[in-house]
């Protein structure tokens, strides 16, 4: 290895020197992996603190847990801490189920997985195994729902989302679909009128832009394609050709969705799972980390505006 050569040496490294340098490199790599482990744990704990926004009483659990994990020390590496925190979320998941979106559940499964990884000899291999399965299954189940739901396949679901979710209205309805602001306002008012007290049970025309149909078709095709790619690549064996597309597909999905709809609880969770799987591949690890920060910033910007 070139890094074992020393400009000040004769060019022939002694075996003892090579061993020393390699040992130093291994120690450095191990220290780096340690730092990354702390980072992965801290981000995961922060996600659960963020998720407590769905049921604020859970801050009482998530905040002390987050403090225990973020502060460097042996406590955050204790599996029982992660399992206890996961267990503390269980009553909230069932008793407050109305408030719990999907990513809160996945966050709890991820806490169980991290506890298992911390209890195992090989933290990274175990954590990456669970991350791979969780991501793959989430998207596999999502694809099954979509291909068995007629209103998704016809684009009606996305058309309704453009109507009821202002984030989609602006980007997909107006910017891409060409819907004029006046027509978008007409649609919003029709939707409000339908829901107002005493509204008549009548059909209200929904106006479309010149490219709305194309945008809807593209959204349906893209969503099915990218989610299928994620599910199949993550659930495929590591030796499979499909596995090469894991990080491309997950990041492509994330960047196509979360800048517009920054669901931080899901976005950062997926990114930290990706980081877990790429701890020895700095470029991917960095891409996931930067993406996580970007999605939090996107959320912050939307919250401010």
């Amino acid at each position, binding site marked *: 290895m070139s890094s074992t050569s020393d400009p000040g040496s004769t060019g022939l490294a002694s075996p003892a020197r090579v061993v020393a340098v390699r040992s130093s490199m291994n120690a450095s790599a191990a220290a780096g992996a340690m730092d990354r482990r702390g980072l992965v744990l801290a981000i995961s704990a922060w996600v659960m603190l963020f998720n407590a926004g769905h049921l604020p009483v859970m801050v009482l659990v998530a905040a002390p847990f987050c403090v225990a994990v973020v502060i460097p020390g*042996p406590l955050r590496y204790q599996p029982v801490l992660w399992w206890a925190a996961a267990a503390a979320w269980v009553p909230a998941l069932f008793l407050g189920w109305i408030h719990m979106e999907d990513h809160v559940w996945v966050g709890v499964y991820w806490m169980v997985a991290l506890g298992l990884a911390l209890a195992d000899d090989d933290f990274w291999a175990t954590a990456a195994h669970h991350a791979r399965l969780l991501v793959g299954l989430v998207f596999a189940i999502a694809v099954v729902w979509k291909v068995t739901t007629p209103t998704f396949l016809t684009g009606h679901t996305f058309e309704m989302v453009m109507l009821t979710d202002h984030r989609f209205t602006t980007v997909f309805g107006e910017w891409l679909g060409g819907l004029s602001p006046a027509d978008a306002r007409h649609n919003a008012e029709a939707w409000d009128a339908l829901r107002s007290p005493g509204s008549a049970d009548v059909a209200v025309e929904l106006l479309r832009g010149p490219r709305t149909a194309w945008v809807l078709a593209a959204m349906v095709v893209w969503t099915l394609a990218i989610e299928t790619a994620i599910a199949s690549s993550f659930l495929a064996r590591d030796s499979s050709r499909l596995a090469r597309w894991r990080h491309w597909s997950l990041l492509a999905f994330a960047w196509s969705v979360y800048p517009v709809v920054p669901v931080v609880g899901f976005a950062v969770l997926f990114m930290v799972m990706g980081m877990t799987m790429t701890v020895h591949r700095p470029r991917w690890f960095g891409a996931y980390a930067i993406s996580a920060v970007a999605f939090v910033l996107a959320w912050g910007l939307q919250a401010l505006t």
Partner: protein
Amino acid sequence: MAATSTRSQRLPSWTHWLPAGLLVMGALGQGLRVQLVDANSWGGGATFAMFADIDHSATRYVQLELLVDQSWVPAALPEELSGAATRLRHLPSQANAAGLAADALTRPGWAAGADGVWHDTGDPGSTTTGSATAARAELWTAGLRDGHIVAELVVTAEMWR
């Protein structure tokens, strides 16, 4: 950390499938509730069905009516009943709709607004509740048909004095 580097420990093989198994069981459980009792498919329990069906809690809405002087009149949903309405949107049932109607009937005071919609005043002095003999709660969901938004009734219940 030393705690992990000095330990030689492999976990039982079943733990390799524990988080994934929990995820599948959770998805199946809530998926069954969606299929069997029309529970909200977009949230409330890890179905991962977001953006699949047009019918979900955000496209469902509650309408409230009071029977006053032999006529059904529209009523605005009181803020205090928003929790019950949310529950009805997430889990439609006769019982949840009847509970919402009963709660509406027991509100201390209703008064007709200029728009013809009755509002909860919270003031027994201004009440006309005495003349409201029944309340009806309806859950509707929106669909799209031939380029039009259409409303479809999901469940309804009436409560009488």
